[in-house]
């Protein structure tokens, strides 16, 4: 129990560090010094001191969007297995809850973007939904495979019970999860978090009109989402539980850090995909998960 609480607190505190690590890796590749590791903390602090500006065209949905998004993420943090594959809340079938919590978050993000009536935000929302259509089934099939493998229907049940012996399936599923992880967190090659070109953005364009504390919540939620989906990937790649809280915690944290490193390397080594080709990448993720399921059933 104590270790699970520790996990949640760690996630809430350390999540904004992940974008810092990614940016630092990218800076090294580009031959720059890069921004401080703690930059996002400074940004959050700065934004929280500001006041928010609301366009007169917006309504209730606009300001409720970021809050609802954060609430949903906080909820999924309770379910997601972290170190030792344990979570605070677990019940059979919570895998479905987990996936749809992200669906709810997306709903609020899209609705609050559409609420501004801006053509850019509309385009961003349409792209976000289009890609979610491909990402969601891949995540589901991956989780179903793992559920069948471990004969368990709760996330932490699944994650605490598999081991190195499940190699092939774990490899395929974690590859699929990594693709979904990149897409859901709007990282390269699906989206470019650094771009300022309204016409090409997906996630960034949906939050163009948010400011001040609202924007801070959005940034914070984005880093928390990175952590939560990252836990799924790390748990599948390193299915190792020593039983010792400290060791397991260290393994998990270094896994998350290594994942951020990997994201930084991917972002430094390749260009962004054409928007038309993004569904192909997501379908590849789906195919990997499906392959794992077929292996499992046979």
């Amino acid at each position, binding site marked *: 129990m104590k270790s699970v609480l520790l996990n949640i607190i760690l996630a809430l505190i350390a999540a904004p560090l992940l974008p810092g690590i990614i940016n630092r890796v*990218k800076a090294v*590749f*580009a*031959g*720059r010094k890069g921004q401080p590791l703690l930059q996002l903390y400074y940004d959050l602090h700065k934004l929280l001191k500001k006041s928010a500006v609301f366009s007169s065209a917006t309504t209730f949905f606009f300001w409720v969007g970021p809050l609802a998004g954060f609430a949903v993420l906080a909820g999924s943090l309770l379910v997601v297995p972290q170190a030792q594959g344990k979570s605070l809340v677990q019940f059979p079938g919570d895998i479905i809850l987990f996936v749809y919590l992200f669906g709810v978050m997306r709903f609020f993000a899209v609705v609050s973007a559409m609420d501004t009536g801006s*053509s*850019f935000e509309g*385009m961003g929302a349409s792209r976000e939904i289009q890609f979610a259509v491909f990402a969601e089934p891949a995540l589901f099939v991956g989780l179903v495979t793992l559920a069948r493998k471990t004969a368990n229907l709760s996330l932490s049940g699944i994650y605490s019970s598999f081991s190195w012996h499940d190699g092939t399936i774990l490899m395929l599923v974690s590859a699929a999860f990594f693709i979904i992880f990149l897409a859901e967190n709007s990282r*390269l*090659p699906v989206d*470019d978090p*650094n*771009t*300022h*070109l*309204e*016409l*090409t953005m997906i996630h960034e364009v949906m939050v163009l009109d948010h400011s001040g504390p609202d924007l801070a919540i959005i940034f914070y939620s984005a880093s928390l989402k990175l952590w939560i989906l990252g836990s799924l990937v790390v748990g599948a790649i390193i299915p190792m539980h020593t039983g010792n809280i400290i060791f397991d915690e260290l393994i998990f944290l270094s896994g998350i850090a290594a994942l951020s490193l990997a994201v930084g390397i991917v*972002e*430094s*080594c*390749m*260009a*962004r*995909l*054409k*928007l*038309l*080709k993004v569904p192909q990448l997501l379908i590849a993720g789906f195919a990997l998960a499906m392959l794992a399921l077929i292996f499992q059933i046979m």
Partner: protein
Amino acid sequence: MKNSLITSNCRPVNSETIPVFTVGEFADEVLRLSGQGQRIVNYFAAQDKNRAVSLFAVLAHDTNGKLRILSSGKIEKEFPSLTPDCVQANMFEREIAEQWDIIPVNHPWLKPVRLQKPQKPEMFLQSYSDEIHEVAVGPVHAGIIEPGHFRFQCSGETVLNLEISLGYQHRGIEKTLIGGPGGRSIHYIETSAGDTTIGHTSAYVQALEALSNCNVSARAQALRGIMLELERLANHTGDLGALANDIGYLPTASYCGRIRGDFLNLTALICGNRFGRNMICPGGVRFDLDKRIIGEFLKRLEKIFADLTNAVELLWNTPSVMDRFEGAGKISRETGEKLGLVGIPARACGITRDIRFDFPYGIYRLAQLPVSTYNTGDVFARAYTRWLEIQKSVEFINNQCKSLPAGEIKISCGVPASNTTVVSLTEGWRGEICHTAITDEKGSFKSYKIVDPSFHNWTGLQIAMRNEQISNFPLCNKSFNLSYCGHDL
């Protein structure tokens, strides 16, 4: 039947020898020449001292290096539009209509080019279908670029039509130059398109020197050539980096950003200004390259070029980059010729068109540069042509530095001749720059007309975006990288 006057780059002609056609014959003659494959490089209206407005056209024959000049008689209210038969006249006629309140009859899409005067709500091509949505971008952009308004008609993510509306940078440079040349004239020219300082200033001083019959020394010509190629190197490098940045390809983007600065610093090493301001003056150049600086200069150039080669070759060797570049924003050779594209976009679709080669001037008469072309007309072709030109420019600078002719760098430039017309063409890094000066009986500018390559090429970008993904617009736009202030003047 009368014939238009044949002249060449920077050759002054007596204004009275320019044949005057009636309005109808003028149109026929321009269309006849354009039908022969000649291309409109300048087409404008000017006023004589009785305030009578008449049209002037300058056409270029790319293969024999000849220019043709002709003018029309007095225009009262309207004149027949050439645009339905010759698309190249489109922007020029819209400009004439805006500046002189005369109407090109039968122009298919007559609206102002620069919004110089207060307008009714602007006219845009619109669709009333429920399937098609409109996206308006700018004039204020998310990035730090110049202001311009872009209106897309989209079906889903596909662009059906793009219309570009500029003029936010209009400063009235051409109008200010009338009555010149004065002390300020050259500074207006230097900043007419800030990133093309050397290109525009070269065109201006060449026109002035031609008017005053001043023969600049070979050493000054060589130094001007070196500066022009340095400007090309810096901007092409910046463009390749910006293209990489637009597709999120980090390494080339970061390195080219730095290397562009290195080239700018090389420019500053010669003249103390990173953009080459104050380097070129009528009669020659202000700063010399002495032995000591040449050593340092060539050493730095070699190192910068080695770094640049590493950074740029990453682009061609990365499949994800090539996937984005190839096939994006395609323009066919036929379209390019029809629109009269110039510079990189023209050469990228296989058109051999380069003033340094076709209408050689200054040092390029002695040291010829081959024309770098590619044939696919897409973003890749425009990027790759830039890389080909970078290699040629570095070679050119190296050769010139090693064999700099001796001589004065500056001689005094006399007074411009009266009643004379001169067309001065240079190849700036964006493409053909055309300055046309007409002097009055006192030798002052009666009309000074600047055509930046962007003026020809913005239409090309509109056409390149048809049936393209709207998310590819920034990439296509960057592959043209046109000037807003050079267009707006």
